[in-house]
């Protein structure tokens, strides 16, 4: 039976509703808990995340894919509480951020060890929580290092065995990513190439190529426009809207995902509130339709992309 794994259990793909496909409830490189400078007050953080999700739901969102993988703040007990009290479906991944973010314990492990580990989480649940991830998230650094390639191969093997999609944080090496995943025999229609709208990563030619190979293009940094913030990938949303328009005009509306890559709370770094007044997923729903409407994309299309596309790519058969 087709389904999608959320932290509260499996749901039918048609229950997903409007879904922001690349977000983070919390995200931080592993190890922040050892650094007292970045400790926080857990109840306040819970309240903040809950408020963010409730607002997201009030504005029409129904599901969120939190792309924080193993050791990156993925705390399923915390997420279950948030999902229960906000009514937003939260989907978490298995997998590591990139070679640079693999926790020390896993350095030097083989591709088979990693893929077995991913499959273990996907079939038996995370730790002893029984919560199953809904997809695999891996990524690269500035370039595709040998460690990143290993991660992608492990992800492809695990995805094939468990029938889940792979999200790759790797727009700037998209074709390399597809080549590696494809060489492991992965069905490219289960691959999402993330961060195609990051500052410095916009490339319509690549996007059309990727989409015509059957993979998904993810424009997922809407609202990240504040250049005084610490992000290297901030730039005006108008550039992102333009990329969306070009893809729609080229007939690839059904290969595209939209999101904003916001953290409701950052672990061990400063990109999000409460430290600085950063945008949230609710701001994404608030501001993006207007940006698109100005260049002739109706709000109806925005919601259609948010609703129809995620359920196609996320459904586990």
């Amino acid at each position, binding site marked *: 039976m087709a389904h999608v794994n959320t932290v509260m259990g499996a749901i039918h793909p048609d229950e997903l509703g409007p879904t922001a496909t690349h977000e983070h409830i919390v995200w931080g490189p592993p190890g922040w808990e050892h650094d007292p*400078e970045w400790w926080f007050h857990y109840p306040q953080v819970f309240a903040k995340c809950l408020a963010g999700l409730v607002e997201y739901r009030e504005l029409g969102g129904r599901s969120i894919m939190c792309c924080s993988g193993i050791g990156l703040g993925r705390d399923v007990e915390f997420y279950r509480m948030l999902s229960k009290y906000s009514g937003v479906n939260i989907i978490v991944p298995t997998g590591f951020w990139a070679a640079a973010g693999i926790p020390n314990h896993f350095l030097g492990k083989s591709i088979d060890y990693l893929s077995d580990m991913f499959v273990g*989480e996907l079939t038996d649940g995370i730790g002893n929580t029984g919560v199953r991830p809904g997809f695999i998230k891996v990524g690269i650094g500035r370039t595709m290092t040998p460690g990143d390639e290993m991660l992608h191969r492990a992800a492809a093997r695990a995805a094939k065995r468990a029938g889940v999609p792979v999200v790759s944080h790797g727009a700037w090496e998209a074709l390399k990513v597809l080549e590696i995943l494809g060489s492991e025999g992965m069905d490219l229609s289960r691959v999402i190439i993330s961060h195609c709208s990051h500052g410095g990563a916009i490339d319509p030619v690549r996007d059309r190529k990727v989409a015509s190979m059957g993979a998904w293009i993810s424009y997922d940094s809407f609202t990240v426009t504040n250049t*005084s913030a610490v992000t290297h990938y901030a730039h005006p949303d108008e550039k992102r809207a333009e990329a969306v328009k070009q893809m729609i005009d080229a007939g690839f509306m059904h290969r595209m995902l939209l999101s904003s890559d916001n953290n409701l709370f950052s672990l061990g770094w400063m990109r999000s509130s409460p430290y600085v007044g950063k945008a949230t997923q609710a701001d994404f729903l608030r501001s993006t339709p207007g940006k698109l409407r100005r260049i002739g994309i109706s709000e109806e299309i925005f919601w259609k992309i948010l609703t129809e596309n995620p359920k196609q790519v996320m459904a586990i058969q």
Partner: protein
Amino acid sequence: MSEIATLTGMIAPEALGIVAFHEALLFGRPGWQHAPDAVFDRAEAFERILGELAAFRKLGGRTIVETSGIAMGRNVPMYRRLSELSGVNIVSTTGFVSQERSIPAHFCLIGYFYRGHGPFQWKRAIPGSPAPSHVGTKEYMMFLFYNELTEGMAGPAMIRTTSKAALVRCGSGDAEITIAEQQAIRGAAMAARKTGVPVFSDGVSQVERQFELLTAEGLPPGRIVIGHCDDGRAVDVSRDMKYAAIGAWIGYDHIGWETRPAPHAMPDGQRAELVKKMVDAGHADRVVLSCSAIGYGLGMPATRHGYSHLLESFVPRLAKAGVGERALHTMLVENPRRILTPVEPTDKDADRLHEFAQGFRLPMKGS
């Protein structure tokens, strides 16, 4: 300021007794808790370590220096209880070992994600430094260690305990010293100078460069313990004598690691020869001994030998090889005491620094 911080409080140097200078209680690489094959049965771990400590004490041992550092499974509240119950003093450590084994990604990447922003940039800049913020610098590491040495070590679940660390650990991989390791090594030396505690370094194949970095920060050789000098891959008694002659301390601290697949394994007989050579050359007053025993492995096996291996097996072996009672007493009791007793801080700005460090413990802004 001549008392030594243990987990149960400050004690007089004379109370240390026989010391095992480099051991681990819980031990695992950061991230072990995510491994499907790692099992942590806390009650079992407690009982097992308690048994090991009791055996060590029964043979006359009084103090264990727990040198796992910040991120390798250290659990201060648990260790403190073990110390109270077993009657063995536990001296604990701040700092990191090599990047691969012990520095989590957070400390390597923080400078990449956060380069200073708004008011925080100014609050957190180092006075006199052109950098907009202190993150990703040796000063950042220094504050991390300094606060653990003066305020108390970080415990699990975002708690700062009241137990202070008594030495700083630093280290590096075998092939090179990475940027994060370099910051940690320099930061260790800076924190040690400002508090008077010693530094324990390992990664003996890079010892020359590490020693350079530590002394470049103004740390005198007498405050540096060069650990792992009995690493089977890098044994060199002339190197050990060279460093002993300039006043550094030599750690033969993998006693009992005799069999593969441990890459640093070596028969204890060869270790005894090393110690004998050092004693015969008149360097008994520069050597410390220990077993690097692991009480309970987190995602890795514990060692077959325990803390008692030192007194049960290795010390008799040394005696048989002709190392005298007096030299043994020097290596097991006097040397650790001299190393661990804090000296006067050599950094004159220590007081100002303390004030400045307060600024780094910012209250959380309301959300």
